[in-house]
C-alpha cells in the first residue's frame, strides 16, 4: 500500500516522486515539502490509527527528499547527478542492513520481555537471617560515628554539581577532543612521520576519527605538529614538530576550558566535546544541542 501525493507538479505514489526526481524528470526545487508533510499528517489523522509500515516508508522517502532538496538549495552544489544516485542506493543498502539488525534486536527484546514476565510470576526470597544470627553478622556500623553519618548526610543533601554543557556529535557518541589531544601529545613525540590512517586505525567510531582530526588541527594551530598532504583526499601525514617537551595541559587550556580538562582528566566528564564557554566557537554542522541543565557555563555559550 503506497501513499499518494497530490501536488501541483506531481500526482501519484510518493516513492515514484522520489524516483522521478532522481531521474530529473521532476525538479525537486518545485516540490514544496511542507505541503506533502501537511497532507500526510492530515491523512494520518483522518485514518485515526498509525500505520507503522506506511509511516516508516513515508519518513524514508521524505528524508531522502529533504536531503536532495538541501543539496539543490545549497550554493555550490550542482545538479543531482549519477554519483548522488549511487550514493542513494548505497545509503539504502546501509539502511537495509540497519533495518535487518533493528528487526533482529526488537525480536530479541520481545523474548527478553517474555522472560521478564515469566520471571515476575515468581518472587525471590529476600528475608535474610533471623535475629538468632544477629550476633554473627559483623557490625557494619563499627567505627562509624554520628558525626561521620552527619557528614555523609550533608554531602548527600548538598546540591549536585550541574552537568557541564556539551554538544554531542550526531552519532550520539560523546568523544573528548581533550583526551585525544592529551593522548596525541604523549604518543606523537619521537614517533616520526605517521599517517592519519594509522593514527585512527583502532578508532571505535567515526566520531573518534573526527575527534582525532580536530585534535590534530588544534595541535597544528599551535605549531606542535606539521601536516602534509600531497593531493586532495590523499594520505595525510603527521609529524611532531614541537621543540622541547610539551605538557598536555598547556595545549588544551588554550582551546578548551581548563576546568573541563581537569574534570575530563579526572575521568568525570570524559569523552565529551566541550566548547569553551563564551568562545563563540561554532557548533559542528548538523550537531544538535540537547535538552540540558542550565549552568554557569551557559552564560555566553550555545545559543
Amino acid at each position, binding site marked *: 500500500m503506497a501513499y499518494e501525493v497530490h501536488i501541483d507538479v506531481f500526482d501519484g505514489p510518493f516513492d515514484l516522486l522520489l524516483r522521478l526526481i532522481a531521474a530529473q524528470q521532476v525538479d525537486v526545487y518545485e516540490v514544496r515539502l511542507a505541503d506533502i508533510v501537511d497532507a500526510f499528517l492530515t491523512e494520518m489523522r483522518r485514518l485515526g490509527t498509525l500505520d507503522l509500515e506506511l509511516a516508516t516508508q513515508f519518513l524514508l522517502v521524505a528524508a531522502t527528499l529533504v536531503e536532495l532538496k538541501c543539496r539543490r538549495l545549497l550554493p555550490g552544489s550542482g545538479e543531482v547527478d549519477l554519483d548522488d544516485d549511487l550514493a542513494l542506493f548505497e545509503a539504502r543498502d546501509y539502511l537495509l542492513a540497519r533495518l535487518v539488525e533493528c528487526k533482529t534486536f526488537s525480536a530479541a527484546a520481545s523474548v527478553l520481555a517474555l522472560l521478564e514476565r515469566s520471571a515476575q510470576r515468581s518472587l525471590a526470597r529476600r*528475608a535474610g*537471617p533471623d535475629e538468632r544470627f544477629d550476633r554473627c553478622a*559483623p557490625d557494619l556500623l563499627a567505627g562509624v560515628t*554520628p558525626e561521620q553519618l552527619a557528614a*555523609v548526610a550533608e554531602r548527600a543533601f548538598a546540591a*549536585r554539581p550541574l552537568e557541564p554543557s556539551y554538544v554531542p556529535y550526531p552519532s550520539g557518541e560523546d568523544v573528548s577532543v581533550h583526551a585525544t589531544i592529551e593522548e596525541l601529545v604523549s604518543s606523537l613525540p619521537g614517533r616520526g612521520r605517521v599517517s592519519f590512517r594509522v593514527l585512527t586505525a583502532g578508532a571505535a567510531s567515526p566520531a573518534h576519527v573526527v575527534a582525532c582530526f580536530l585534535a590534530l588541527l588544534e595541535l597544528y594551530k599551535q605549531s606542535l605538529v606539521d601536516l602534509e598532504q600531497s593531493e586532495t583526499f590523499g594520505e595525510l601525514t603527521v609529524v611532531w614538530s614541537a621543540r622541547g617537551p610539551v605538557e598536555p595541559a598547556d595545549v588544551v587550556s588554550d582551546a578548551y576550558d581548563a576546568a573541563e580538562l581537569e574534570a575530563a582528566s579526572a575521568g568525570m566528564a570524559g569523552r565529551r566535546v566541550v566548547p569553551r564557554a563564551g568562545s563563540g566557537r561554532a557548533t559542528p554542522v548538523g550537531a544538535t544541542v540537547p535538552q540540558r541543565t*542550565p549552568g554557569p557555563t551557559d552564560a555566553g555559550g550555545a545559543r
Partner: protein
Amino acid sequence: MNSLSPDLRGDAAAIEAVLIVATEPVATSLLAELLEVSGERVEHVCASLSASYEEEERGFELARVAGGYRFQSHPAYRGHVERFVVDDAPQRLSPAALETLAIVAYKQPISRAQVAAIRGVNADGVIRVLQSRGYVEPVGRDGGPGQAVLFGTTQLFLERLGIDSTGDLPPLGQFVPDVSTVEALEHVLRTGPVPTADAEE
C-alpha cells in the same frame, strides 16, 4: 507433598508461597484473608506443615513467632548458616549504603522514591540490604495514591551508633532542602528549567 493429607495441600502450598517471599512473620489473620479461609484453618494447616517439615528432616522450619508464621533455618544447621552469614556478609557498609542510611536517619519517615530522588539513583537494593541488616525498617505508609512504604531507622541502628534517639544526631550545618524541594530540583535537572519570576530577569 507426601506427608501432608491431601485436603490440606492446596492451602499449604499457598501458605508456603506467601511465607517464602515474606521478610517478616505473617500474621494468622493476614494468611486467612489471603487464602479466604478461617484463622483456625490457617493454624491447622500451618501446624501440619510444620510437623511435616520436621518429619521430613528439612533444613528449614515453619516457626510461629510474634503472632505469625515464618520460615527459618532449622537449629540443626546452625553451623552452616553461621558460617554462611559470616563468610557471605560484606564486612563494611558500602558508601551507597552509608549514604542511604544517613538520608533515612535525617529524613525519616521517607519512601524509597524519595531516597532515590535525593541520591539520584535507585535505592531499592541498598534499602533492602539496610533492612536485612536491621538498620532501617518500614514505619508506615504514605497517604498519597501509591501508599508508598515509609522507612525509618531502628533501635539497633541507635545502639550501634551509641545514641539514644535520632534527636541525638548532630544537626546538619547547612540548609537542608526538604524532600519535596529535592524532588522539584530533580525534576528541573531532568527536564530543563521551570520558568520563574527570577529566571525572567
